[in-house]
C-alpha cells in the first residue's frame, strides 16, 4: 500500500531570504498590535545606537576634554533638585564632568565593546561550527570537547582570567592602549561556544537533507554549498543568540569596568561611571550611581527584549 500523501504533496521550498523577511515583517506587525513593550524596547535600543554613533554631536559636553572641566561645577545635583543647573541636566561628578554626557559616551563604549566582541564571537563561532558540522570526525570531537569544557566555566570567570592574563602579558605602558582590545577579545572568546554549538547542530542537520546531498552529488563546491544553502538556514538562530549575547556582553563589560579591570578609567564607560559614583553613594550624591545604572539596565533590557522578540518571531530551535 503506497501512501497517497507522497504523491499529492507538492511541497515548494520558499526562497529563504524572502521567507525570513516576510516572517520579520509579519512578526513586527503582530508585535505592534500585541506587545507595546517590544515596540518601546526596539525604539529604545535604536535610540541608544543612534546616541552612541552621534555621541560627539549629541553630548552637551565633551567629557574627554580636560580643559573644559570646571571644579566649580563639581557634584551638582540633577536640574530638578536645588542647586541644579540647566547646563547639567543629570548633574555632575566630583570633577565637574556632566553626567548626561558621560552616560552618552559611556553607552557608546559599552555598545562598541559588546558589539565588536559579539561580532568576533559570531564569526569565530560560525566558522568553527560550520567546520565541525561539515567535517565531523575527530576534529569535530576535539573542538566540541574544548567547547564543552569551556561551557562548564562561567563566562565572567573566563573573561576575568583572559583579561587578567592579558594585562599581565603586556607592559604597563601599553595597558591603557591594549585594555579595550584585550577586553573585546576576552568577551568574544567567552561567547563563541554557544554559537559554534548551534551552528554545528544546524549545519549537521542541513547537511543530511536531500537538497544538500543532491548539490554534493552534482559536484558543487562545498564552500558554495555552505554559503548558498547552509548559512542561510543557520542565520535565524545565530541572529537570536548574537542579540542576546550583546545584552550579556554589555553587562560583562560594565561589570569588569566596575571592578576596575575593564575599560581604563580614562575612557568613560557605564561601569566605570558607576564605580566612581559608588564612592559618593554614602555621602548622598546618588545621581552619580543611579543615572548610569539606569542607563545600563535600560540598555541591557531593551536588547534582551529585542532578542526575545526575535526568538519568538523567527522561532529557531534553540537548544
Amino acid at each position: 500500500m503506497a501512501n497517497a500523501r507522497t504523491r499529492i504533496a507538492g511541497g515548494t521550498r520558499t526562497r529563504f531570504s524572502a521567507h525570513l523577511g516576510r516572517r520579520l515583517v509579519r512578526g513586527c506587525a503582530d508585535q505592534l498590535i500585541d506587545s507595546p513593550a517590544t515596540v518601546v524596547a526596539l525604539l529604545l535600543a535604536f535610540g541608544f545606537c543612534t546616541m552612541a554613533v552621534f555621541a560627539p554631536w549629541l553630548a552637551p559636553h565633551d567629557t574627554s576634554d580636560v580643559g573644559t572641566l570646571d571644579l566649580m561645577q563639581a557634584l551638582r545635583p540633577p536640574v530638578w533638585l536645588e542647586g541644579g543647573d540647566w547646563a547639567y541636566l543629570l548633574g555632575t561628578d566630583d570633577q565637574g564632568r556632566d553626567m548626561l554626557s558621560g552616560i552618552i559616551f559611556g553607552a557608546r563604549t559599552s555598545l562598541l565593546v559588546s558589539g565588536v566582541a559579539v561580532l568576533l564571537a559570531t564569526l569565530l563561532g560560525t566558522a568553527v561550527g560550520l567546520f565541525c558540522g561539515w567535517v565531523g570526525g575527530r576534529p569535530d570531537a576535539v573542538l566540541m570537547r574544548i567547547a564543552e569544557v569551556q561551557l562548564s566555566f562561567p563566562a565572567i570567570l573566563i573573561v576575568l582570567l583572559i583579561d587578567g592574563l592579558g594585562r599581565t602579558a603586556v607592559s604597563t605602558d601599553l595597558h591603557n592602549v591594549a585594555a579595550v582590545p584585550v577586553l573585546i577579545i576576552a568577551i568574544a572568546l567567552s561567547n563563541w561556544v554557544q554559537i559554534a554549538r548551534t551552528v554545528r547542530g544546524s549545519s549537521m542537520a542541513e547537511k543530511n537533507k536531500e537538497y544538500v546531498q543532491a548539490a554534493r552529488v552534482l559536484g558543487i563546491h562545498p564552500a558554495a554549498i555552505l554559503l548558498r544553502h547552509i548559512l542561510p538556514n543557520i542565520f535565524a538562530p545565530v541572529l537570536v543568540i548574537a542579540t542576546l549575547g550583546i545584552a550579556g556582553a554589555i553587562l560583562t563589560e560594565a561589570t569588569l569596568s566596575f571592578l576596575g579591570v575593564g575599560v581604563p578609567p580614562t575612557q568613560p564607560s557605564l561601569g566605570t561611571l558607576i564605580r566612581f559614583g559608588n564612592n559618593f553613594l554614602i555621602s548622598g550624591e546618588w545621581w552619580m550611581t543611579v543615572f548610569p545604572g539606569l542607563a545600563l539596565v535600560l540598555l541591557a533590557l531593551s536588547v534582551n527584549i529585542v532578542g526575545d522578540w526575535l526568538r519568538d518571531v523567527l522561532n529557531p530551535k534553540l537548544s
Partner: protein
Amino acid sequence: MPLLDIQHLRIEFVQGRKRLVALDDVSLAIDPEEVLGVVGESGAGKSLTAMSVIGLLNPPATVTRGQITIDGRRSDNLTDRQLRRIRGKIVGAVFQESLTSLNPLYTIGRQLVQTICVHSDLTARAARGRAVDLLAEFGLSTPERQLDAYPHQLSGGMRQRVVIALAVCANPRLLIADEPTTALDVSTQAQILAVLRRLRREYRTAIMLITHDMGVIAEMADRVAVMYAGRIVEDAPVREVVAHPQHPYTAALIGAIPRLRRQVGRLTRIDGAMPPLSALPRGCAFHPRCPKAFARCREERPPMLSSGGGRAACWLFDGNG
C-alpha cells in the same frame, strides 16, 4: 442513535484579533461498533476533528461553532473535569508517534497500572495483572517482563501496542486512532491493524481511524469521510467509495492506490498542493486542482449533496439527488 455525532463543527485559530478558520461545517457521525475512516492530506483537519472530540485542542485552536454529542450527551461545552470522565472511559485515543506518546521516564508497567487505577477500583496488584493480560492479548511476548521496560527499550511495533493497550484499558466504546501505523514499517503496520480488528471483533469498540493512506481505509473501514482543506468533501460506505468515488478529489485519491494484480496504465496524480488555510480560494477549495471544475465551482462553495451511495460536496451532483 450514533455513538459520536458531530454537527457543523467549526474550529478557528484565534490569536489576538486574528482568526483563521481551520475547520468549517464538519458533520460526522459514528455508530456503535462502526469503523469510520477519515482520510485527507496533512493539514486537512483530520486531527483537529479528533482532538476536539476529547476536548484536547491546543490553545490557539478553538471550537467556535457546532456541537459534539457523545453517547447522547453534549460534550463540546463540558469543563475539563467533566471531560475527564469521557476520556479513556468512553473515548480512547491513540496518536501517531508511539515513542513520544509514552513518558520516557517511567516504565510501561507504571504507566499502565496508573491509568488502570484511575479508571477502576482495582488495587495496584490487580491492575498489574490486568496490564499483563492486556499486553498478552495484544500479542506482546513475555508481558510480565515488558512491564519493567522503559519505552525506549521497546521496538516501534511493541510501543504502539502498549499505547493502544493504554488507550483501551478502561474499555472505551470509541477509539480514535490518529495515524496509528504511519510511523511503522509495513509488516508491523499489518500487526497493528490486526490488533485494531481484534478490538472491534471482541470488544465491539467503534473506531475512528484517521489516516492519509487510502489502502488502510479500504482494508479496515465500514465508512469513509474524505476531508480537504478543513471540510468534508465525501462521506460514503467504503465499498462505494472504492468502487465509485463521487468527488473528483476522492477519485484522484483512489486512483493513486497502486494495485498488485490489476493492470492499470499509470497511477493518477493530483497536480498542485492543498492551499494553505490562510489562502483558500473562493468557491470550492478544490477547484484549482480539479479536472472537472466549471464556472460555478469558482464562485460558490458546494454543500454536501446526495450522490451514489453517500454524500459529496460537489456541484456535479446538484440536482441529481
